[in-house]
């Protein structure tokens, strides 16, 4: 997983399948970076995530709660296929914005 920080926006480029097993390490890394930078916006980039179960939704909701501590928000991007379906089913779009690529 890679992190990029620019002008208050922290982007976490996630990689690999997200399930209950992998979510723990991902969560720890994101929280560590987020607590240090306190970004007003945390972008979770799912472009390189080929599979995600509902553990991914728990991961997103937990980060929304963390960012709320300093009034930050979470943006999801790079969602495709199965991930879109999961995000729609969960209604997580009510608490995190979804960035769609133009075109």
């Amino acid at each position, binding site marked *: 997983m890679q992190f990029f920080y620019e002008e208050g926006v922290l982007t976490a480029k996630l990689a690999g*399948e997200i399930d209950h097993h992998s979510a723990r390490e991902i969560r720890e890394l994101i929280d560590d970076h987020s607590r240090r930078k306190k970004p007003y916006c945390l972008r979770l980039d799912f472009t390189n995530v080929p599979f995600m*179960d509902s553990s991914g939704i728990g991961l997103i909701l937990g980060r929304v709660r963390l960012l709320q501590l300093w009034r930050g928000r979470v943006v999801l991007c790079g969602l495709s296929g199965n991930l879109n379906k999961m995000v729609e089913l969960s209604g997580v779009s009510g608490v995190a914005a979804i960035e769609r690529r133009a075109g």
Partner: protein
Amino acid sequence: MKPINKLEIKFPSNSVNEGFARAAVSAFLSQLDPTLGELTDLKTAVSEAVTNAIVHGYKEELGPVYITVKIFEGGKVTVRVRDKGCGIPDIPKAMEPLYTTGGEERAGLGFAVMQSFCDSVRVTSKVGKGVSVTLCKHFESRV
């Protein structure tokens, strides 16, 4: 009805096996020449059921998780995920969306995902004896 093919696997409830479980089911079903969408839907449901067994069935201890996949004539597939853990005292309650006993990092969506990604989900349980979840999904023939 007798299945035309069958897979049985058993593994300990280590969370690292979640990925193995859904990959094994997915590999077995490749003989049906499924679409990626159908396969991913079932993989997701399997991942939810196996995670439930690991997180809720056995909690802090380890125990066996059993998966039986059956393929029937016409593309009907059933996947049964079974554990010998603590069981579910109130199944309708456990199946309510957003209900979770798993703490704040769990979304409480496991059964909702299984239900919307499969044709049907059957859950049986005895407290102290374990849980059996049977996922059923029809795969369209592409031949």
